């Protein structure tokens, strides 16, 4: 597979209850790099060190926590042109957002997923690099560039809502994602969680069933190694950041993981590892008879809070 079409989760906008608290968490503690702020709109824009695009995380102060939107980056402008009628043919209303409405960004397409989440696609965003340059770049940025939880990049998100089969069908049929894994009810076979990839990663986006539309389960950031997951866990403990699930491994995706919450209750994950997915890799299915091993494979204990607490 040559990776064209939809490339990755390129930007996520999260609502926070207090921007100063959010900055302390995401920038001071986690080590994301603040690249821009907008006092009028009460937003800050951040990136992880090894991302070339100008920003990938937008934090907006609001009176509710949760997700504003997810935006996926596509290969080029022609991809946007090609996708627009396909999204409409799927049955969603698509609105066009002019270049520059979202800072440093080219034009966007926007629509609401069947699960109730606002999603955008964009092809262009200003690139500011990862500090190493692009000619004889070396491998190590200057001291202080990699700090906090040593996050390399934004990786994926998990969204909660109804109609997750329909949201997954959009990603598979229109955006060419593969269904890498699935959690289903052991008797009814109803989908409880669906994991989708557009790359060689186990997932780029996932959906979990929730009766209420548009809920936000977590945003996840990639670390270099399982050792760095443990290092992050020590930092999380040091700063008394609320932990949902301490260091463990997921059965689904095989990632080494820790889950914690930002000061507004939005769930964050830092993780490393996982298997390599190709388009001919078969879909892996778990059912509710094995929720422990599916969720957390080192102690095989399902967490009540994990799939049901969200913003």
């Amino acid at each position, binding site marked *: 597979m040559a990776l064209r079409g939809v490339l990755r989760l390129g930007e996520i906008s999260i609502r926070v*209850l*207090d921007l100063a608290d959010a900055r302390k968490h995401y920038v001071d503690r986690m080590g994301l790099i603040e690249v821009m702020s907008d006092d009028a709109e009460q937003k800050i824009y951040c990136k992880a060190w090894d991302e070339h695009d100008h920003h990938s995380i937008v934090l907006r102060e609001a*009176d*509710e*926590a*949760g997700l504003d939107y997810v935006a996926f980056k596509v290969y080029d402008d022609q991809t946007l042109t090609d996708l627009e009628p396909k999204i409409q043919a799927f049955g969603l209303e698509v609105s066009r957002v002019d270049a520059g409405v979202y800072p440093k960004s080219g034009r966007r397409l926007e629509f609401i997923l069947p699960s109730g989440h606002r999603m955008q696609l964009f092809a262009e965003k200003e690139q500011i690099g990862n500090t190493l340059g692009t000619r004889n770049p070396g491998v190590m940025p200057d001291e202080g560039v990699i700090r906090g939880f040593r996050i390399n990049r934004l990786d994926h998100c998990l969204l909660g809502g109804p109609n997750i089969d329909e949201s997954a069908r959009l990603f598979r049929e229109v955006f060419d994602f593969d269904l890498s894994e699935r*959690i289903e*009810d*052991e*008797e009814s076979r109803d989908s*409880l*969680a669906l994991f989708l990839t557009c790359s060689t990663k186990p997932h780029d986006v996932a959906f*979990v*069933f*929730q*009766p209420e539309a548009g809920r936000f389960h977590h945003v996840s950031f990639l670390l270099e190694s399982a050792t760095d997951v443990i290092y992050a866990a020590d930092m999380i403990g040091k700063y008394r950041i*609320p932990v*949902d699930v301490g260091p463990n491994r997921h059965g689904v995706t095989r990632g080494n993981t820790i889950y914690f*919450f*930002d*000061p*507004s*209750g*939005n*769930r964050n994950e830092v993780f490393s590892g996982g298997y390599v997915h190709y388009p001919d890799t078969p879909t892996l299915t778990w059912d*509710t*008879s094995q*929720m422990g091993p599916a969720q957390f494979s080192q102690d095989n204990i*399902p967490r*009540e*809070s994990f*799939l*049901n*607490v*969200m*913003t």
Partner: protein
Amino acid sequence: MQYWVHLDELELDFACHPGQSVLDCMIGSGKKGIQVGCRGGGCGVCKVEVIEGDYIARPMSKAHIDNDAIADRQVLACCITPKSDLSLKVVGKINKPIQRKGKQA
């Protein structure tokens, strides 16, 4: 100065220390009763009604605590610090659409 938090229906009592949220104090005391979720005012599962007593609240998500709830003295236990002894009633819960169905379900 510490205050006591009391939940009548759960026969639950624990002490609350200055500067700590009611939920953190319950967790710190090793006791259970109020559901523990995000601990940041975002998910709503630790919603309680304050039957008696005074408190200071930090911002809570309007999705779970709107103006009507505030008027009814409903708050999130993770976001309030007592200014007196408190008597509380549990309102929130964790919905569980995803779990293995038991015979009684």
